[in-house]
């Protein structure tokens, strides 16, 4: 009886969504996010898009604005092929680390799914973007969209001026070096887009205004009077180079003897984008775990309050369990550890350890087991870790047992794999540390640095690949990449593989030999 007199507490009843329902659900979710989870997030901007637009966004590495390049077209075709053949579902959402934080919702989603997605992306990811130290340190959420706008129009203008072929040649080469285009330790000055743009604009305008065809007709002697840059200039530039430099794109942008100003600017754009995505590469597990944990907690809370119906909750749970599905290693569907699963499980596990610790947990995690404040513990973890350190610190024996993790060692010369550790007393430490290692970008990315360049002499650029654990490079791809570097450097480029422990030279390859 009472129910009838009061308006229904349900946020929505139909599976079709509309903007009123969305807005009501958003407000309810926001309340829980703030009151129960104490999340701190950028203002949200939620955009509804169609599947085709989602494919568009996918192929341009998830940015709403992107310059044009054939590789994005290739990914678009590839993904739309997969999608049309039903081999791939599209993500329900896409979220961009910007301020305001932009979340894309697919129009095909049901209302329950939209609510789930809002909780996941607009609050989970959003909180993570705003609070994780890596994002705070490396990305500038407020400036990225404006920067992309600038990048897009700058590259479009270059195409107009210098031809799409010339721009493509630079971009191809720059893309090949994207993984080697980040500063991992040094902090670069924060980019100010406005200043950047003004700088470029001024320079271009100056060029345009001062361009006069008459200069071409001046007698040669006029040019001869202007002395060639003296030797000191080269030696000055030479001594300004800092070795070793691991950010190869930065190195090329600064010191390449052949690049023109616009080409350097393009390298810079690619580098800035690579740097922007660097934190995301390091926090896949945490980021997805945080978002999944957030949506799981919020949706359950909504259900407990009677704000969503059982039917909707079932749908939510079904989608949730699809997301955190982890096939075993011997399953044909296995494609690596699912970051959603690992992250979500670890965070649930932290919650458990805080609230109901076992003796083992107290032993392993004395500083927070049973502290009763799971929320604070998680907020702290989200803020101050990346995948590698998060796993190293928080992966519990209980979870290792639960997921039945084991570590497997393979040696290229050995016809056998060796199981080095399983979920037992002797194995926990090793499994945990090996798993953490596998998320360390520093360990998985080949370590390649520029070590010498003789600007005054033969102008040969020397790169050094420090090989860890015998992990050499895929040859075809390596040689192609080396050719690209030569294109940017303009002269011979050599790559030497040196064993990290013995300093023995493993291989040496030069762009000259490759032709």
């Amino acid at each position, binding site marked *: 009886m009472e129910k009838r007199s009061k308006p229904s507490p349900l946020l929505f009843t139909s599976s079709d969504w509309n903007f009123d329902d969305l807005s009501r659900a958003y407000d309810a979710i926001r309340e829980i996010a703030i009151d129960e989870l104490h999340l701190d997030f950028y203002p949200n901007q*939620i955009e*509804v898009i169609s599947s085709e637009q989602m494919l568009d966004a996918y192929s341009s590495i998830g940015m709403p604005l992107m310059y044009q390049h054939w590789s994005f077209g290739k990914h678009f075709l590839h993904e739309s092929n997969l999608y049309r053949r039903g081999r791939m579902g599209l993500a329900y959402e896409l979220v961009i680390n910007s301020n305001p934080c932009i979340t894309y919702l697919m129009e095909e989603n049901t209302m329950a799914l939209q609510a789930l997605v809002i909780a996941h992306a607009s609050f989970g990811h959003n909180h993570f973007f705003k609070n994780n130290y890596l994002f705070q340190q490396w990305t500038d959420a407020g400036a990225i969209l404006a920067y992309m706008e600038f990048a897009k129009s700058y590259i479009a203008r270059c195409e107009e001026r210098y031809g799409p072929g010339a721009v493509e040649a630079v971009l191809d080469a720059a893309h090949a070096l994207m993984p080697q285009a980040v500063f991992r330790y040094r902090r670069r000055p924060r980019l100010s887009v406005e200043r950047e743009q003004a700088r470029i604009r001024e320079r271009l305008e100056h060029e345009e205004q001062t361009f006069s065809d008459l200069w071409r007709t001046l007698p040669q002697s006029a040019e001869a009077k202007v002395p060639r840059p003296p030797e000191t200039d080269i030696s000055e530039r030479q001594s300004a180079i800092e070795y070793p430099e691991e950010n190869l794109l930065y190195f090329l942008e600064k010191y390449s003897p052949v690049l023109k100003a616009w080409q350097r600017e393009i390298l810079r754009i690619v580098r800035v984008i690579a740097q922007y995505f660097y934190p995301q590469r390091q926090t896949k597990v945490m980021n997805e775990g945080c978002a999944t944990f957030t949506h799981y907690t919020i949706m359950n809370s909504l259900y407990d309050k009677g704000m969503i119906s059982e039917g909707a909750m079932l749908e939510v749970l079904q989608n949730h369990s699809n997301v955190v599905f982890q096939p*075993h*290693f011997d399953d044909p569907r296995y494609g690596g550890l699912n970051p959603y699963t690992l992250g979500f499980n670890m965070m649930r596990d932290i919650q458990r350890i805080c609230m109901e610790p076992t003796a083992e947990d107290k032993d392993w995690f004395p500083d927070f087991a049973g502290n009763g404040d799971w929320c604070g513990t998680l907020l702290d973890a989200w803020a101050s870790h990346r995948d590698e350190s998060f796993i190293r610190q928080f992966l519990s024996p209980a979870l290792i047992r639960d997921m039945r993790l084991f570590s497997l*060692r393979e040696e290229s010369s050995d016809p056998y794999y060796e199981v080095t550790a399983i979920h037992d007393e002797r194995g926990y430490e090793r499994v945990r540390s090996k798993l953490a290692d596998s998320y360390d970008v520093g360990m998985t990315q080949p370590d390649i640095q520029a070590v010498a360049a003789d600007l005054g002499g033969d102008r040969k650029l020397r790169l050094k690949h420090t090989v860890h654990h015998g992990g050499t490079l895929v040859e075809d*791809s390596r040689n192609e*990449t080396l050719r690209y570097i030569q294109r940017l450097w303009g002269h011979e480029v050599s790559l030497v593989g040196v064993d990290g422990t013995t300093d023995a030279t493993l291989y040496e390859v030069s762009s000259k030999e490759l032709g």
Partner: protein
Amino acid sequence: MPNFIDRRLNPKDKSLGNRQRFLRRARDELKRAINDRIKSGKIDAVDSNQVIPIPTKGIGEPTFQRSRNAGHREQVLPGNKVFGSGDRIPRPVANGGKGSSEPTASGEGEDDFQFALTREEVLDLFFEDLELPDLVKLNLKEVVTFRPRRAGYTVSGNPTSISVARTMFNSFGRRIALRRPKQAELDAISEQIAKQEEDKRPTPAKAQQLAELRARLETLQRRRRLIPYVDPIDIRYKRFEPQPVPNANAVMFCLMDVSGSMGEREKDLAKRFFVLLHLFLKRRYERTDIVFIRHTHEAAEVDEDTFFYSTQSGGTVVSTALEEMLRVIRARYPAKDWNIYAAQASDGDNIPNDSDKCVSLLNETLMKLCQYYAYVEIIDERESEMFRHADNGTSLWNAYRQVSEVWPHFEMTRIAKPSDIYPVFHELFAKQPAPAKRS
């Protein structure tokens, strides 16, 4: 309060530029694939959308990647069931499991990468070798134009196409059915009322009658107001149906010498020649039939596959093909209903004396029936130097020159490479009426 934005109506095809850039990048590979299609596919399939698988060569995105097969590594996997630490498991044989397949240069293993090319893109690639002038390409790619044609009536439409007659007709019927008072009827009553009102001292009966008349007038007037003269439901619009611009039918005869001297290369060139003529006809005519006639020392009408792929041995008697063509025309394609186009490909061989017979066949009957007759002689690249001058050639060539002197719509040329084909059609395309005419 979040900021909701509905982006669904934003312009689509944001990635069109990327797609075009990619196509340009993969052009060589695509062209090779298209040429293979043309060799193996049907003539009329060229003019359609195609899905084309291409290898990833040239479209890879290399980076420095750690090789999976070198050195040692240790990884953590989920779902251990039977292993204890220290167990040694035999490495799975190549391609059996993880770690065995080297990633491709693109890093994603997209080996069965497929393109869905639109008709336009296919045609672009097809035209590339043929060196067609741009205008001709545009003409060929042009889509069918439609002309609106009257087709009955409809209840919705735009105001300019209201059919007044039909609307009034409906209105009239409705007015009768609903018994809408006519103006004359109202006038008559008003007149009676006026007449009675003149009577200054009416009898009660008269007054009664006057009141009745007034009441009646009022009813009728109300009824007139309620039943409109023209109601929206009466309105009919002329319906127009888009109708392809009426063209007559065309039939295209493909004649080819299939004797042993015609090899792979000759047949491929011949096929391109036929495809081009077919494209042209398909654009101009609503219905295009193709008849394939092959000949050695005897001719027969065959299907497309047999035409291009099966070989037959024998001599070469060209006139048999012409006779066969004549027979087919008489049997199925009367010249008054069909535009007849013929394309003949040959290497120029013919038995002696037969060429004269061909000339007389063409001059006396066939050329009168045909809209256009194109003859290509497929020659070796080496021979092309030798036969630079038109007045020097095989027996068939020399004989046909007599025909071409008499008939302006007889074209002949020698081709040694794809770009030689276009000149044969030059006249044909030049004579094209501008597309605008057919709007």
